[in-house]
């Protein structure tokens, strides 16, 4: 169908098999399992002392910088994969550009690591 030939057909078959077995697993308890609903079963599960309200979510933002960095490096990886692929090939392109790219991304990395260590700032 598209691109690289017959293997994709079987990829779709496999994906369908995974989807169907997943849905099957979901549907079977519908027939086999009891359904005795009660208010307490459907409460949110909480254990221990609840920290005060809004702070709970803020506290989880401490490592937000890492997520941004992840995006940056993800884009860089794009470039690096191409470079690695052509490493041995005809006319190697040297490593100046990849090196520059990585060097450019190091300051944000250091900044992010430093900031994430300070809990109060979040």
């Amino acid at each position: 169908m598209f691109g690289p030939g017959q293997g994709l057909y079987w990829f779709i078959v496999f994906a369908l098999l995974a989807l169907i077995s997943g849905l099957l697993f979901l549907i079977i308890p519908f027939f086999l399992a009891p359904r005795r609903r009660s208010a307490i079963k459907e409460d949110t599960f909480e254990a221990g002392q609840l920290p005060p309200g809004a702070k709970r979510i803020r506290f989880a933002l401490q490592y937000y910088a890492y997520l941004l960095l992840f995006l940056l490096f993800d884009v860089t990886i794009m470039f690096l994969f191409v470079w690695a692929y052509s490493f041995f090939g005809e006319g190697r392109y040297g490593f100046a550009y990849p090196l520059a790219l990585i060097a450019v991304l190091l300051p944000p990395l250091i900044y992010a690591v430093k900031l994430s260590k300070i809990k109060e700032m979040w």
Partner: protein
Amino acid sequence: MTETPRGDFFKTFRIVVTIVFLASTALLLYMLYGPAMSVISYFLRDPQAFLVDPLFMVLIFPGLTYAGLVAYLAIWGERKFAAKVQNRVGPLYAGALPGGILQNIADLVKILFKEVIIPRDSDKPIFILAPVFAFIVGSLPVVLVPYSPTYVILDFPVGLILFFVFTAFYPLVLLLAGWSSNNKFSFIGSLRALYQQASYEIPLFLSALAPVMLAGSLRLVDIGSAQGSVWFILVAPISAIVFFTSILAELEKYPFDIPEADSELVAGWLTEYSGVPYLLYQFGAYIKMVAYASLFTVLFLGGWAGFAFLAPEWWMVIKVAIVVTIVISTRAFFPRIRMDQLLSAGWTKLIPLALLSLASLVVLQMLGLLAFLR
């Protein structure tokens, strides 16, 4: 008592799911009909050909049956191994076979009979579908990893990157699962799991660059075939170590167990899941482990290269078994490291190590020492 403000929507949702299920089953049967008929017709005449038929590959080896079997044995093995190390016996009594190997089947049967509890005010469609997506995203990478140049279901020219695509999909599912539980602890747990996964994806990709450099290709079959003379782990050992560590983090195995740990925010992002949804997550995670172990073998342990007295596929199976054993043994050996230690280790230690390994490869190439690979 429990109001269901979206009751109509839920009924519609169930109908839609049933339709999707029936439609995909129909489509699957339609797609399988032709190949199945031809396989049956020549199976009796020429059994050898059956062994390399794509249908066999998808269903049995290295597809569903094989991956499922290895995952099954891995679950049992992990429990048994951890038990022995902790001076316990682990699974023992289930069924007639020794060693409690049938324990998993017993657990499966039990789980199928468990009531599926959906939290009130949770986002029901996402809550129910997230495990299915986790299962699909976890099991699809199996398609990509070759067990020999002939035993590969999808031989994609950029196969390695496609594998990593499935790695990248997982955080999405994670976020949806934790958020849809309508439980602050679950949500924070999923955020932490997200940080962990995102932080270790980069070292994973960076360390996988080394085999790409050495083999000069992004096709997994090429990378495996390029290790005929020497395994890449000997040429780029640091990359192999970084890759393996990142695998442990991506799979949420010890010592990177924080998102799933029992004493951390209850059970992290999986808190509200019980019964079959939980089963889908866990089984998907173990099949993902099989896929990752196979990938590690292809990238660093020489793939199917081995002495000639065994077929290449068997070498692959043996190596994958060893890798899986090492992965599951971490449960018994490692304590859990703290979240901030975990994240800073990923960013400040693993990434420089991976880059160092790449730099060393560049140096080796400039010194002309890598000529034997060509």
